[in-house]
């Protein structure tokens, strides 16, 4: 063991007596490791930030989609809400493009037909004046609507519009509504997801029943919808609940096992986004790892030069009783130390660089700010990897050194 310490001393001594060379050799490893760490921690940080923000978006909403000819009916939804635990509300919608006429002019816009629960599913707007339409309004097919403040300004140049009539002509039919509510957008600060409110189309949020009745759109009460959105409680297992709902729909439509209905939760979308980010991160990290490989070859190159340069020293050591193992160990420790120190420097520089980049981003573009993050396992793996690069690329030169015949080595002047 004391001998091992001697070899460590020797290796350190040799590294220190060739400072410039050791630093240059290290540089390859430092660049390789730091770029891997930089990419991984930025990618991870961005992923965590996106996950965190998107997790509020979904907010317990699950879409049920019909993939075949079967349609989701209001009865289905009523039944599900009544019988499946954790289903808090359902939303069905339809959208029709039309021409809106007001005293200020004619605009292109949409009649957004929905049921009275719509506001529960709205995350980016809140009631600022008046009220939403109710189930009574819906059931009676009253010609009422609520619109966004921004749209009110576009349509009337005014936000004092409660009680005003508004006409929309769809497929040659004129529908006359009365505005009963105004909403305003909630601007989420520090969000990656932003909506372009400026150029958003104009929407009239109307009871779906009025569109059904006036347009004979799709006779929804009997035929049903291709998709619906459910609001689930946050304390239940989304996956299990959704599976249960799909089973109910399948059996109500006598199509068990036919995959007529599927569900989509935001978690699924989130998972897809994560997979994409992971792949991109991994890909860039692999590219960075190539520079690590090149750095390893640099280590081998320098160690080979060192062996050639120190042939005489190796000869002397062997003549004095150094065994093959001792010489090998000496050179391996040297390359191992260089790569280990390079690896540690690389980790520090990579992490530092990641924090510098993220703080530049948060200064320049605060809405995209995020904190870099890296798991200790990645750091551990990187450290082990850099040391093994040193050992792997050190083996050949070390063997070359150790196998030198002392006579040959001493003869070289």
């Amino acid at each position, binding site marked *: 063991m004391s001998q091992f310490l001697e070899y460590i001393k020797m290796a350190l001594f*040799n590294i220190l007596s060739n400072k410039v060379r050791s630093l240059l050799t290290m540089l390859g490893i430092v660049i390789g490791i730091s770029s891997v760490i930089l990419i991984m921690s930025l990618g991870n940080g961005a992923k965590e930030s996106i996950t965190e923000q998107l997790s509020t978006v979904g907010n317990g909403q699950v879409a049920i989609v019909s993939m075949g000819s079967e349609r989701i009916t209001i009865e289905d939804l009523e039944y599900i809400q009544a019988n499946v635990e954790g289903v808090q509300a359902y939303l069905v919608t339809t959208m029709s493009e039309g021409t809106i006429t007001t005293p200020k002019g004619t605009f292109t816009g949409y009649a957004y037909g929905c049921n009275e629960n719509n506001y529960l599913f709205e995350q980016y707007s809140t009631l600022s004046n008046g009220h939403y339409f109710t189930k009574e309004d819906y059931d009676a097919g009253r010609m009422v609507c609520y619109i966004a403040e921004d749209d009110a300004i576009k349509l009337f140049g005014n936000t004092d519009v409660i009680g005003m009539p508004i006409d929309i002509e769809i497929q040659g039919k004129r529908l006359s509504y009365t505005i009963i509510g105004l909403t305003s957008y909630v601007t989420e600060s520090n969000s990656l997801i932003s909506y372009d409110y400026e150029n958003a189309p104009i929407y009239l949020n109307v009871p779906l029943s009025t569109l059904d009745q006036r347009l004979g759109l799709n006779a929804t009460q009997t035929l049903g919808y291709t998709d619906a959105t459910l609001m689930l409680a946050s304390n239940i297992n989304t996956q299990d609940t959704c599976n249960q709902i799909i089973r109910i729909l399948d059996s109500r439509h006598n199509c068990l096992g036919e995959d007529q209905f599927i569900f989509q939760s935001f978690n699924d979308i989130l998972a897809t986004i994560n997979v994409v980010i992971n792949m991109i991160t991994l890909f860039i990290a692999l590219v960075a790892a190539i520079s690590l490989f090149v750095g390893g070859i640099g280590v081998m190159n320098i160690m080979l030069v060192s062996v050639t340069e120190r042939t005489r020293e190796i000869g002397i050591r062997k003549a004095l009783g150094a*065994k093959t193992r001792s010489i090998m160990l000496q050179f391996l420790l040297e390359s191992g130390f260089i790569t280990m120190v390079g690896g540690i420097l690389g980790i520090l520089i990579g992490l530092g660089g990641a924090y510098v980049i993220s703080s530049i981003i948060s200064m320049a573009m605060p809405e995209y700010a995020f904190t870099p993050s890296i798991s200790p396992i990645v750091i551990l793996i990187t450290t082990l990897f850099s040391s093994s690069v040193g050992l792997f690329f050190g083996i050949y030169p070390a063997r070359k050194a150790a196998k030198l015949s002392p006579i040959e080595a001493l003869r070289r002047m």
Partner: protein
Amino acid sequence: MEPLIHIENIMKIYNPGENAVHALDGISLDIATGEFVAIIGQSGSGKSTLMNILGCLDVPTSGTYILSGQDVSNLDDNALSEIRNQQIGFIFQGFNLIPNLTALENVELPLIYRNVPTSERHECAVEALKIVGLEHRMRHKPSELSGGQQQRVAIARAIAAKPPVILADEPTGNLDSSSTREIMKILHNLHDSGRTVVLITHDVQIAENAKRVVRIMDGKIESDKTKEEGALSCQNKQ
């Protein structure tokens, strides 16, 4: 008493086959403990090959080499390393000090490979440097020492681990005459203190220092003379 070095019918053949070179052609030699032997020969005589075999840097093609009672004629690389470390102190023509180590660290080298603990190693090395009169320069690097001083460091390194055999290969070949006298005096002192010294040289005058001169020619021993008086007269000259 069993001789310290016993070689019998040693052959060393390079390039076996058509162009075989018989560097050593059946050499037999006994060297007893405490002897001061010079092996002399022209270049190409085979004395360097003999020195390599005596120093366990190489193994003979055939023949037997018994060193301190152990047959070393067929050992592998690692075993030879160990024998060199335990049994032989080398003094080379080119000094062969490691340039970036201090005199003391150079002297400590064989002790490191012998696993001697640090404090004891340090003690032995300092003692050896005292014997060659260089204890005041032990923190110097070889480049800061004169040729004669470097060779004295090399001698200190050869004797630090107290090996039974000191093998000096043209130890004065790179030195001026005053340094040569100095080095030879140290070798004499080592011999006088009971150590076995084998001196390999092409220089008859240097060989005169030894009490026994073995002359090699064409891979064979040409003569083997013990000259008590010659050695004495040489000592008187100094």
